[in-house]
C-alpha cells in the first residue's frame, strides 16, 4: 500500500513525520491555547495544489480541564477516544480530564492531510493524527514544565509532568496544569518537541473506555436526527423513484387535508411534505398523487448494466499497473486460468436514516447534521442559498453510522432546497425506503482476470481488468489522474504477492443515472474479493494448499506473519465435518496487514452458515486495542452482511429493495464466532475501520469452495450459490 500513488486516502504515512509547527496563545478566559500547523508533504498528485495545513486545538482551562477540538467525526469507530488518547498520552493527563467538542467547518484548520480537506473517511484519522497530535500534547507538556520551573526558579530537568500537574522532583512541590496554563501560554513554543518513548506509554496500547459510551446507553447522545430547534417543522420527502427523472405534477389536496400537515414543497425531482411531526408528514406523503417524468432511465434494469459492463470490458482500459512482459509470460506459461468476477451495487443502510435540519434566513443559514465532510456541507449550502460560506453555520452531531454514506452531501443539498421554501427551521428526515432507494451505491463491477502458471503451478503472468464506476472522478476530480482512480484499483495494483509480468487495467464505466459512492472499504471491498478468490483458484489449479500457496508468494514479512497466525489459530488443516470448509484471505490495504480464515458449513439443502471467522491483524501500534477488536468485528459483520445478502437491483429504472426485509442486515442469531488476534508492533498505526470488510468475502467464498467444490465468482453468496448448484 505504501506504493500506491500518494494522492488521497492512501497517502504515505511517512510524510506525516515532518516537523509540526506549533503556536501558543492565551485562550479566551485565560488558559493555554495551543494550535499546531503541519506543512503538508509535497505530493505530486495532491487533490489540492496549495500547501495544506493541519490544525487542531488544545485548550487547558484554569481548572485543569483539557479541551480538544475534534477534527475528525465520530461515527462509531472510536475516533473521539483514540484521538484524545494521543494527546493525553504526551500531555500526561488522564482521559477523564479530557473534554472534546466537534470541530466547526474549517479546511484551513482541520484538514485531513491524507484526504486533502476536512474529511473523516478512508480509515485515515489515526494515521493522519499519530504524529501531529502527539506533538501537540508534548509541546504543551514541555511548556507547562517550563512555566513551573520558572515559577519555582529551578531547572526544567528537575521537573516532570504527571497526571495533570508538574512536580519538582527533589522537593515534591507540585503545580496543577490549571494553575500553570496562563503562564505557559506566554512562553515560546519549543523548537524541538520530544515525544515519549513508546515504552513509557501509559495510555496508548492499553484498552481505554470510550468517551462517548455513557451518552449512548442512556439516550442522551445527540445524533443529527435528534436536533431540536425552536419552531422546527418536520418534513419527509419522495424523490423521483427513477434515477434521473423529474417531477411532472402533483395533486396535494389530500395531503394538505392531513391533520398536522402545513405545506407541500416541490423540487425539480422531489416532493416534500412539511408537518408538525413525522407521523403527519409520512401520512401526507402517502396521500400525494404524484406524476413523474421518468426520463431516459425508465426501462433500465440490472441486466442492462451488467451487459454494458461486459461489453465495455472487452476492450483494454487505462493501464494502472504494469511490470514485466505479460503477453510473453502468458505465452510461455504451462497452463492458464481465466475467470470473470462480478460484484453488485450495495447500499449503506446506516441505522440513522439520512436527515438534515436547516434554517435558511436572509442573512444566514444554520445546518444541524451528522456529516463526514463538514466543509462540503457548508459549501453546498452556500452555493444553493447564494450566501457566503461564513454565513453558513454547520452544527455537527454524532453520526448514526457513516460507512462512507455521509461523505456525500446530496441529502444536505436537498434539505437546503426544501428549507428555502419553508418559513423557519425544518428537519428533513428520509424514510428507510427513501434511504435505500436514493442511496449513492458502492459501484457494481465486472472483472476479467487471467493468470499463466509455470510447471509448478506458480504464477508467471497476471492480467486483471477492472470495469466499473469511478467515485473519485466525481468526488475528488483532481485525484482522478490520467484515467486512473487510485481507489477503484486499490488492492488490485499492489497485491502482496510476488507476481512477475503483471498488468492491471481499468475501464471506466458509469452506469446511466445511478449515483455511485464510497462504501466501507470501497475499492478493496471489490478488488480483494477478486484477487483473493483468484489466488485460491490458482492454488486449486496447482493442487496446492491455499495457505501454503499464498505463503510461497507473499513478500512482506508482516503479511506472511498475519496469514500464519490466522491459519494457526483457526486450526488450518485440521479435519472438519462433511459440508464444512475453511477459506483464507490476506491483504495489505489501508496501511494494515490482515488475514482472515472463515469456517463455513453448507447444508445439503444449500443453506450457508458461517461458523467462525479468525482474523489476525497487524495495524502497527494499537492505540486502543479494545476499539481495534471492536472495529474488526464490526467490519467483518458489515462485510458478511454484504457477502451473504447485499445486492441492489434495478427494474424499470427503480431500485427494487426498499427496507430491511428486502435489503437484509445480519441479525444476532446469524453471527459467527469471531476471534481477533492483534499482532504486537512498533510500527506507526495503520487504518482499522475498513480492512476487516474487504478481507471477509473471499475468506467466506473460499471456504464454500473448500466445503463444496463450488467456486463463487459473483456476490452475494445467497443468490450465487443457488444458481451455481
Amino acid at each position: 500500500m505504501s506504493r500506491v500513488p500518494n494522492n488521497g486516502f492512501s497517502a504515505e504515512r511517512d510524510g506525516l513525520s515532518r516537523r509540526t509547527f506549533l503556536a501558543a496563545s492565551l485562550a479566551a478566559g485565560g488558559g493555554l491555547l495551543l494550535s499546531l500547523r503541519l506543512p503538508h508533504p509535497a505530493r505530486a498528485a495532491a487533490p489540492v495544489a496549495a500547501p495544506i495545513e493541519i490544525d487542531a486545538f488544545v485548550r487547558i482551562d484554569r481548572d485543569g480541564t483539557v479541551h480538544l477540538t475534534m477534527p475528525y467525526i465520530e461515527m462509531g469507530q472510536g475516533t473521539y477516544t483514540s484521538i484524545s488518547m494521543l494527546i493525553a498520552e504526551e500531555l500526561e493527563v488522564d482521559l477523564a480530564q479530557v473534554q472534546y467538542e466537534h470541530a466547526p467547518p474549517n479546511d484551513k484548520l482541520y484538514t485531513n492531510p491524507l484526504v486533502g480537506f476536512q474529511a473523516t473517511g478512508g480509515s485515515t484519522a489515526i494515521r493522519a493524527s499519530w504524529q501531529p497530535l502527539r506533538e501537540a500534547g508534548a509541546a504543551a507538556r514541555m511548556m507547562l514544565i517550563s512555566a513551573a520551573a520558572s515559577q519555582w526558579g529551578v531547572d526544567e530537568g528537575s521537573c516532570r509532568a504527571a497526571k495533570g500537574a508538574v512536580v519538582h522532583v527533589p522537593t515534591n512541590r507540585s503545580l496543577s496544569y490549571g494553575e500553570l496554563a496562563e503562564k505557559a501560554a506566554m512562553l515560546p513554543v519549543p523548537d524541538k518537541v520530544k515525544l515519549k518513548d513508546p515504552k513509557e506509554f501509559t495510555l496508548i496500547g492499553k484498552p481505554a473506555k470510550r468517551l462517548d459510551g455513557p451518552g449512548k446507553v442512556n439516550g442522551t447522545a445527540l445524533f443529527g436526527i435528534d436536533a431540536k430547534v425552536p419552531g422546527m417543522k418536520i418534513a419527509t420527502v419522495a424523490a423521483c423513484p427513477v434515477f434521473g427523472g423529474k417531477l411532472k405534477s402533483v395533486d396535494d389536496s389530500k395531503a394538505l387535508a392531513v391533520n398536522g400537515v402545513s405545506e407541500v414543497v416541490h423540487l425539480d425531482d422531489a416532493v416534500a411534505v412539511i408537518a408538525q411531526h413525522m407521523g403527519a408528514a409520512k401520512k401526507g406523503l402517502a396521500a400525494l398523487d404524484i406524476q413523474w417524468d421518468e426520463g431516459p432511465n425508465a426501462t433500465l434494469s440490472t441486466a442492462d448494466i451488467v451487459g454494458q459492463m461486459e461489453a465495455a470490458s472487452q476492450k483494454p482500459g487505462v493501464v494502472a499497473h504494469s511490470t514485466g512482459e505479460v503477453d510473453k509470460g502468458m505465452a510461455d506459461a504451462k497452463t492458464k486460468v481465466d475467470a470473470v468476477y462480478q460484484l453488485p451495487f450495495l447500499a449503506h443502510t446506516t441505522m440513522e436514516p439520512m436527515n438534515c435540519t436547516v434554517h435558511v434566513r436572509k442573512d444566514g443559514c444554520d445546518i444541524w447534521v451528522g456529516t463526514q465532510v463538514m466543509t462540503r456541507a457548508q459549501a453546498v449550502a452556500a452555493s444553493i442559498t447564494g450566501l457566503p460560506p461564513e454565513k453558513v453555520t454547520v452544527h455537527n452531531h454524532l453520526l448514526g453510522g457513516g460507512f462512507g454514506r455521509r461523505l456525500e452531501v446530496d441529502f444536505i443539498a436537498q434539505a437546503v432546497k426544501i428549507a428555502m421554501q419553508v418559513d423557519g427551521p425544518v428537519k428533513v428526515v428520509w424514510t428507510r425506503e427513501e434511504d435505500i432507494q436514493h442511496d449513492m451505491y458502492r459501484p457494481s463491477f465486472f472483472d476479467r482476470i487471467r493468470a499463466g502458471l509455470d510447471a509448478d503451478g506458480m504464477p508467471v503472468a497476471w492480467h486483471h481488468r477492472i470495469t466499473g464506476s469511478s467515485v473519485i472522478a466525481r468526488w475528488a476530480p483532481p485525484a482522478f489522474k490520467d484515467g486512473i482512480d487510485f481507489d477503484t484499483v486499490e488492492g488490485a495494483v499492489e497485491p502482496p504477492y510476488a507476481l512477475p509480468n503483471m498488468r492491471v487495467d481499468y475501464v471506466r464505466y458509469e452506469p446511466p443515472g445511478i449515483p455511485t459512492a464510497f462504501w466501507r472499504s470501497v475499492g478493496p471491498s471489490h478488488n480483494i474479493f477478486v484477487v483473493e478468490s483468484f489466488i485460491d483458484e490458482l492454488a486449486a489449479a496447482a493442487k496446492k494448499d491455499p495457505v501454503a500457496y499464498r505463503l510461497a508468494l507473499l513478500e512482506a514479512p508482516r503479511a506472511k506473519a498475519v496469514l500464519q497466525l490466522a491459519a494457526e489459530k483457526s486450526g488450518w488443516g485440521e479435519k472438519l465435518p462433511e459440508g464444512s470448509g475453511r477459506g483464507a484471505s490476506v491483504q495489505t490495504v489501508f496501511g494494515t496487514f490482515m488475514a482472515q480464515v472463515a469456517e463455513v458449513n453448507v447444508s445439503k439443502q444449500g443453506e450457508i452458515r458461517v461458523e467462525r471467522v479468525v482474523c489476525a491483524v497487524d495495524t502497527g501500534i494499537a492505540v486502543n486495542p479494545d476499539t481495534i477488536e471492536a472495529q474488526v468485528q464490526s467490519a467483518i459483520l458489515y462485510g458478511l452482511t454484504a457477502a451473504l445478502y447485499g445486492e441492489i437491483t434495478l427494474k424499470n429504472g427503480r431500485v427494487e429493495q426498499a427496507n430491511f426485509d428486502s435489503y437484509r442486515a445480519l441479525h444476532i442469531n446469524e453471527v459467527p464466532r469471531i476471534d481477533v488476534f492483534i499482532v504486537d508492533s512498533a510500527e506507526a498505526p495503520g487504518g482499522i475501520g475498513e480492512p476487516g470488510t474487504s478481507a471477509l468475502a473471499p475468506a467466506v467464498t473460499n471456504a464454500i469452495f473448500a466445503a463444496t467444490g463450488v467456486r463463487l465468482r459473483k456476490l452475494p453468496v445467497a443468490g450465487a450459490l443457488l444458481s451455481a448448484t
Partner: protein
Amino acid sequence: MAFTIKINGANHSVDVDGDTPLLWVIRDVLGMTGTKFGCGRALCGACTVHLGGNPVRSCVIPIERVGEAPIVTIEAIGETPVGRNVQTAWLDLEVVQCGYCQPGQIMSATALLSINPDPSDEDINNAMSGNICRCGTYLRIRDAIKAAAKSLASGAQKG
C-alpha cells in the same frame, strides 16, 4: 384528537390523529429523542420502548392503541434495577459503536432479563433478533446480556 399517555411516570397530553405512531409522539411531539427511528415497519427495533412492561416497536403502535398502559423509554430505563445493570454491562463491555441502535437494544435486553434472569444463547437470539445493529456489536451485546444477568443474580443473592 387528544390523548393522554403516561411516559416514564409522567402524564402527557397530545393532540394528534389516532393512527399516529407512538414513536413520532415520543420523538417529535414530546421531544424525547432517545428512542430512535430506523425503519418505520418494525423491522429493525431501533424504536423499542416498553408498553405495559412489554417491549414493542413504537414505530407501528398507533397512539390510539396505547390507552393507559405505562410507557418506559431509554431515558428512564436506568431507574429500574434490571435496566441499570444492563446499561452498566453495556459500558463495562464497551458494546457501543455508533450507538444509534443501542437504546433499542438496551430496551429489548432489559425486557428479556426482566422475565428471564438467566437467558440461554437461544433465548437471547429469540429476544434480540429483531434489533439490527449495522456496526455489528452483536458479539458484545450477547456478552453484555450475560454479564448483566450475572450481576443481577449476584445482587439478588446479596439482597
